[in-house]
């Protein structure tokens, strides 16, 4: 598949950034495009913008033209809508204390929790952190139906904390496939810093 190219050659700042941002708006998740720039200042500024917004890119240079390959890994750039200004700066946290959602039917509980975690990434703003403890840690191991979603969230900047004591207890510590194995200090720190905590 041929990459979409944003030709910003001959343009001075801030035009290349405006063109980059416009293309980001038109690109789907995991989509890529290339930005061509022929002056170093604009190149640096576009790179800084991408870095600040956690968007991966690769820059190559041929003669005097830089080409920046941008991958859009996030739905939203790191800014909330103007009317969301007043939300707590810290962002919110999700806390999963079980491998099921709700009580009643264990099977239904597992279906619900899959739907829940797969939906988190669709909601903006994304949470600041997601914490797993007790049997909730089982959601983070290889083969978990939500592992892919959690990895996507993690690469978009969401901090994922997995209780180390719990993973040890269930003897799955070496199977944890996402997040940071954390102690109680780190977990409580994430929860106390959160604007609010959601227990699904």
């Amino acid at each position, binding site marked *: 598949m041929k990459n979409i190219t944003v030709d910003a050659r001959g343009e001075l*700042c*801030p035009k290349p950034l405006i063109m980059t941002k416009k293309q980001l708006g038109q690109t789907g998740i995991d989509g890529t495009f290339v930005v061509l720039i022929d002056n170093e200042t604009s190149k640096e500024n576009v790179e*800084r913008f991408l870095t600040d917004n956690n968007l991966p890119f690769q820059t190559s240079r041929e003669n005097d033209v830089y080409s920046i390959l941008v991958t859009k890994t996030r739905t939203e750039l790191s800014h909330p809508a103007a009317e969301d200004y007043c939300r707590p*700066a*810290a962002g919110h946290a999700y806390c999963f204390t079980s491998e099921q959602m709700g009580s009643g039917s264990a099977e239904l509980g597992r279906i619900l929790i899959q739907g829940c975690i797969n939906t988190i990434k669709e909601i903006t703003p994304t949470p600041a952190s997601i914490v797993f403890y007790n049997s909730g840690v089982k959601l983070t191991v290889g083969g978990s139906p939500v592992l892919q979603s959690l990895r996507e969230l993690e690469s978009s900047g969401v901090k994922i904390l997995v209780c180390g004591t719990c993973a040890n207890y269930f003897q799955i510590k070496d199977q944890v496939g996402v997040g940071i194995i954390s102690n109680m200090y780190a977990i409580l720190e994430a929860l106390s810093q959160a604007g609010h905590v959601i227990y699904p």
Partner: protein
Amino acid sequence: MKTEFDLLTTVEQGGCSAKLPAQLLDAIVKNIPVLKRDELLVGTDTHDDAAVWKVDADTAIISTTDFFPPLCSDPYEFGQIAAANALSDVFAMGGVAIMALNLVMFPSSRIDIQVLEEILRGGADKVAEAGAVLAGGHTIDDYPPKYGLAVTGIVHPDRIITNCAALPGDLLVLAKPIGTGAIVAGQRLGEVSQEDYQAALDGMKLLNSRGAEVMRAHGIRCATDITGFGLLGHIYEMASGSDVHIRIRSTAVPLLAGAYALVDMGCIPGASFRNLRYIDPYVRFAEGLDYNLKMLLVDAQTSGGLLLSCPRDLAEAIARDLRDCGYPATAIIGAVEKKVDGQPAVMVE
């Protein structure tokens, strides 16, 4: 007769702000020997707005200069803005402007001399409005044109307002909205409404003289004006000069109408990135901080507002007085705290 010449055609597209990067300057200025004199009350070491020289027990002289290439089309307006910008440093030091000299670079063979007349008329009108006398100047044939002033002011030596006297417990008050850099860049690209553009120009023409009167009335000791290094650049210099920690509430900072939308579309002038690189080591941004807002906090301002640090119990009264005397966007935007070792000088929430 009004001359129809678009000054913006003389400066490069994307000229951003014409100031040299602060790091670059810091690196060489420190190699230049400076004589210490007891009479020099404010010199180069605190990055303050102007130099202050003590003449006697009752009088100190404030000396400052500023000039730059065009940032708007109309010569008369350019003259007004350049003069208001140059005069501002005297007001930020708590002084009264008494005298100004024109600094002019103008290509007489390429642009009709009437255009220069308009620029000078704009400058002279602002100098007069500030209560000072225009007493001469110096001209060089050069392209693109540049204009500004060298200004002399006076202040009582015991009532000098510096950028390094913020005290823990103080609150920070900002008298003008920010975003002139983004608006000027957006205007070049045809992305700004006439209304928003004119409001930004009017803000840049607005003298900080009445703000200085408010500061004097309340006995303020610490202030600066916001210019090329952006709000955060000047706040960092205040924090570092005062040896304190400053906490900024980003959502409280007043913005020019249209500036946020411009930054949101990617219209971020190169000067903003330059300023961001300058303050990066000293400023911590809260996680999840609005990126557009962050980039506006480093937007290079031309003829920006006064930023003052004042005792907590005075802040509301000062903000009200500033709003009442011509700075309606005035807001309390942050707080001064005790410095904690190992913490960055400025925190943005």
